[in-house]
């Protein structure tokens, strides 16, 4: 039951982000850490 609630809330959050036009994160979420070599 708690899991289903969690999934529904997550879906609602995604819908809300889309409705507000906050979509820039879709690109930024795919960025990975660029290793600089420092400390290696």
């Amino acid at each position, binding site marked *: 039951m*708690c*899991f289903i609630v*969690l*999934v529904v809330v*997550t879906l609602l*959050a*995604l819908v809300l*982000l889309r409705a507000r036009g*906050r979509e*820039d*994160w*879709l*690109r*930024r*979420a*795919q*960025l*990975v*850490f*660029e*290793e*600089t070599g*420092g*400390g*290696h």
Partner: protein
Amino acid sequence: MATNTDQPGTAGIRTELREGAVGLPGVLMQGIATIAPSFAILASFVFIVGFAGIVTPWAYLFGGALLALQALSAAQLAKQFPSAGGWYTWIARTLHPRAGFFAGVFFSVWLPPVGALTLSLLGKTVLEPAIKDEYGVTIPWWIWVVAGLALVIWWSYAGIVVSERLLIITGTIEIVIMVALAITALASPGPGGFSLAPLNPGNFHLASNLFLGIVFSIFAFSGWESTGPLAEESRNPRRNVPIGLVGSVLILMAYFVFVTWGYLVGFGTDNVGKINFDIPFPVTTVAQRVWGGAWVLLLFALLNSAIAVSIACFNGGTRTWYGMGRSGVLPSALGKVVPSRRTPDNAIHLQVAVNVVAFVLVLIFGAEDTFFTWANMITLGLITMYLLANVAVARYYLTEARSQFNPLLHVVVPAIASAAGLVVVWQSYFSPF
């Protein structure tokens, strides 16, 4: 935060966390401590023995082998995409950002409240009654929660170097004590004497249901996933994080096989059928018999375990939120780092708040109900996350990274791992066994 996404093909971000601060031992201990070697025995041993009986070590061996395949699958993403976002970033990058968001949410519900929930369960069900029985002194359970969390929070703000060093110390102490107990138990066996019967596959027929023992042993291994978010603070993350993911499962597999063999022999191989929830925790019984008054070292190991898992979950949870805040899907304040200590303090503040909420829930609903309701929920969340990652591995290596495609690693392993995950869900929630 500097980005250079305008350069084709690089898609990189520089980190503000303390880059290169954690070596391979720290990365491995992040996974091992989150599995919680002694706490996992406390939570799973009696349950698994109920199904697997004398061949309980085999249940852990097979369960670990299946999880090792899942870890190997996840490692295929970890070696390509080092990021504090961990699973969130891996799945967002290779499957879809919205699928990654689900993984980020599951991580956000899983790791952050571990400290309050674990310390509450340990304090309420083990420490308070055991210390009262042994010394006649009542130390209220909530004192362990408040004191333990205070230390963990302090170390978390102190920075990754301090917290990983303490993680290695506390994690090592618990493993040494638990292994020492198993060795002593083998040297001083219970009824039935020293025996290799728990390791003999010829005894599989003596288990009431070895398959279910394997299914439920998989729960004992949860925690290895938390290695991912340390990528930006670990040395050579493309090498060390994958090793941490797979290595923590393999090390714990060997640990579980050895210590459960020792505890069964110490309890008495003739008495294995008597192990159930109606008797005191059998590992405590073994410790009291072979160590006398020094059995309280077992309590110390469990307390260390709870502290270690709390440290590891503070690190894993806050770094995932840092990654999500940096990408803008959570408030950008979570992606801020304090320059002096290079810690994501806003994410740590939030994690402290989550632990306060978890503690309030424990006070309202009780430690056991709150812990097991949460554990039930995150088990489904983690398996969903595994499935998403497995699909992502196959998709990524069949398309973008086609030149590196290996059918065994990128199709067969994820498929077997996914099938194992689905069987666990079926047997745990739907099958009327």
